[in-house]
């Protein structure tokens, strides 16, 4: 008998969970988490007012854990299609390293824990928004929309747009116009980001029966929609300047980056191969990191002027 014959799937026949800590870490989708943490932190810094550094760390930690927990529940629900898609087949549940029930329990405990800690340590508005983001991602996006409509990531993208608003609410205790502008930037960035991915992973989504736009409407319509959203993103990326959340240290680079993003979208339109879509997907991640980095830099500059002025 080979060693493989003893490999129990997750908490298989013996009832013993065989997964290591690294497997549970993968359930939290660390790469998505890094983007969520960064935008949440930027929202926290951009908000008017101040928060004790310890409470700020707790707020960012809760956003990170809450986002990871939603990711774990998503992996529990999507375990059937994850096993089919090349991009996700190596995840711990389809690989049998974590039993589905364990992943669900892990996600639920972390979701409840992160919301409770946010409420008790920071404030109830931030906790409420965190709970709303988790519930939206799990019930609206994962369970309801993802397998039903090509608009899945348009509406579902709202879940990923919550972090800066949560960071903002952690400081102010409410949701201001400034927070909504940061929400809008991520909300309109999400569709072109995911559609670029879906263009070169089309076969994967088709095989799994996920109705992403390229699967349902084809690449030409997807490319049109990508251009539409990147055009809309140009004025939207400047709204934080118009409402006074940020100055031109943010505005100028955000404008340049948004125009470059549109340039990548136009390259996708012209290119019949996957190359431009892959490039655009890579740039979209850089775009969001860069835009929020400039927001942080701008906030620091504005604060410095306030101190010296």
């Amino acid at each position: 008998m080979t060693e493989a014959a003893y490999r129990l799937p997750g908490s298989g026949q013996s009832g013993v969970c065989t997964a290591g800590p690294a497997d549970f870490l993968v359930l939290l989708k660390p790469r998505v988490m890094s983007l969520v943490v960064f935008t949440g932190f930027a929202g926290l810094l951009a908000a008017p007012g101040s928060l004790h550094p310890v409470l700020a760390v707790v707020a960012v930690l809760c956003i990170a854990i809450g986002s990871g927990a939603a990711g774990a529940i998503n992996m529990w629900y999507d375990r059937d299609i994850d096993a089919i898609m090349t991009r996700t087949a190596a995840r711990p549940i389809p690989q049998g390293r974590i039993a589905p029930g364990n992943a669900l329990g892990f996600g639920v405990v972390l979701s409840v824990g992160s919301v409770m800690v946010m409420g008790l340590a920071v404030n109830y508005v931030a906790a409420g928004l965190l709970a709303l983001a988790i519930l939206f991602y799990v019930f609206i996006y994962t369970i309801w929309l993802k397998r039903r409509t090509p608009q899945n990531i348009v509406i579902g993208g709202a879940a990923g747009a919550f972090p800066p608003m949560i960071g903002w609410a952690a400081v102010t205790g409410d949701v201001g116009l400034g927070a909504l502008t940061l929400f809008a930037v991520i909300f309109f960035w999400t569709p072109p980001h995911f559609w670029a991915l879906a263009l070169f992973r089309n076969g994967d989504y088709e095989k799994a029966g996920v109705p992403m736009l390229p699967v349902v409407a084809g690449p030409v319509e997807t490319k049109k929609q990508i251009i539409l959203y990147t055009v809309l993103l140009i004025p939207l990326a400047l709204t934080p300047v118009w409402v006074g959340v940020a100055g031109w240290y943010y505005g100028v680079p955000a404008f340049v980056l948004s125009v470059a993003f549109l340039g990548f979208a136009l390259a996708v339109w012209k290119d019949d191969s996957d190359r431009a879509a892959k490039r655009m997907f890579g740039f979209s991640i850089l775009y969001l990191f860069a835009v929020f980095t400039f927001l942080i830099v701008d906030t620091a500059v504005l604060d410095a002027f306030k101190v010296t002025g």
Partner: protein
Amino acid sequence: MSDKMTDNNDKRRYVSEVHRRQNSKNYAMLAVLGALVVLFYVVAIVRIGGAG
């Protein structure tokens, strides 16, 4: 005879691998619980101090 020995060796190797992973998971859990104790203590001190 030889098959049975290989079988036992595989089984032993599997069990020790499972124990190793369980051990590392237990240590990770201990670290998380310890960190939470410290975090709650610090948050309590900060909140008592009037922040937030």
